[in-house]
């Protein structure tokens, strides 16, 4: 038993005391960019989203604020997602299904504002998600205890450990076993999802966790899962659990 435990802990970068935010692997310049709200480019998306919060939209001519009140009421919300969606009384919505924060924003948009859903990575969607995530900055990631979410986390961890692509690597291979090492010119981080949506210097824009994951999949020459595919939602659910207790730093800045 002791032997089993010892071999199981070989790559135990997941143990809470060894976890490090990706920002700690970046250059001092990138760290300074994230730390200063007047310099952090992600703050442009946060401010844009905070404005959109109060603008009436859709056939219902309702703003987010009309239902929710000030955006400050969103404190703690981003820390809980992905989560099982609450029942809305609408036959079209799948209550109990695990959804991401951006899917929940779109759900509000369709069901409450009666507007067409934004496509993945739409600037307005990223802005609202950034503004909502910003309200949780400094709070610990706190996925709720829900049976549906627990099942998603379990599926997500299996996907995290599955080797994929022509290069035949799993998320686990790099982010648990090789964090801190240089892959080409880039330092591999532990992959804790505390800064999303992130401003990525390579993108020159804010992007979602799904964009980041799909980029990794393409890099190992795998077929990326489609936007909002159940597998990507499951991976997001697992990654939120993996980072549970770590402080949210949105908007993160990364190379």
């Amino acid at each position, binding site marked *: 038993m002791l032997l089993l435990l010892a071999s199981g802990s070989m790559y135990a970068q997941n143990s809470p005391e060894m976890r490090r935010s990706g920002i700690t692997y970046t250059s001092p310049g990138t760290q300074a960019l994230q730390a200063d709200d007047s310099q952090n480019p992600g703050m442009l998306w946060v401010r844009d989203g905070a404005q959109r919060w109060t603008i009436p939209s859709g056939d219902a001519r309702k703003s987010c604020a009309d239902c929710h009140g000030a955006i400050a009421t969103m404190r703690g919300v981003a820390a809980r997602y992905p989560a099982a969606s609450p029942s809305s009384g609408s036959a079209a919505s799948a209550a109990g299904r695990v959804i991401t924060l951006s899917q929940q924003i779109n759900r509000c948009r369709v069901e409450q504002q009666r507007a067409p859903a934004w496509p993945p990575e739409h600037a307005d969607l990223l802005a609202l998600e950034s503004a909502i995530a910003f309200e949780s900055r400094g709070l610990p990631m706190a996925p709720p205890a829900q049976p549906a979410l627990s099942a998603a986390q379990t599926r997500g961890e299996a996907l995290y450990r599955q080797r*994929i*692509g*022509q*290069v035949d*690597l799993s998320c686990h291979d790099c982010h648990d*076993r090789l964090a801190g090492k*240089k*892959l*080409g*010119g880039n330092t591999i981080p532990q992959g804790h999802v505390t800064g999303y949506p992130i401003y990525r210097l390579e993108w020159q824009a804010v992007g979602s966790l799904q964009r980041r994951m799909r980029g990794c999949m393409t890099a190992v020459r795998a077929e990326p899962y489609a936007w909002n595919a159940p597998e990507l939602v499951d991976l997001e659910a697992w990654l939120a659990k993996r980072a549970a207790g770590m402080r949210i730093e949105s908007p993160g800045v990364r190379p």
Partner: protein
Amino acid sequence: MAHPPPRLRRPSRFGAAAVAGRLALCAAAGASTVAATPGDGIAEPLTTTAASAERGRALVANRQQSLCVLCHQVPLPEVRFQGDISTNLAGAGARWSAAQMRLRLVNPRALNPDSIMPAYFTTAPRSRVGVAWRDKPILDAQQIEDVIAWLQTLR
């Protein structure tokens, strides 16, 4: 073109339980299949065409194609952003024979299933391989031989 099963430099260090069965090697996309029992090397070259160290050097320097320098340091000062995940390949020719290199390129996970390095010349089993890469090895037979030829010059 079909290759005869490569002869081993010396008998396998691994029991049948350690590495089950024989390695199926995809010689080229959809083309022939050769088989080898994994030992410490694959003695026979994968092609009958003479290998070129010059082409091998260019391949190693091309990160998008060969991926080598993403993980390995190589003695090519003009190649920037070399990774430090695995072995520094300076002096590789003095440390491994061509046969040993061939096995380590063809399928390093035959020696160490936990190896980060993917099999460069086997295509199965893989999951979710992108359309552009499906059923293709990372390097073809001649490219493997060319890379070995260059690595052998590093003494």
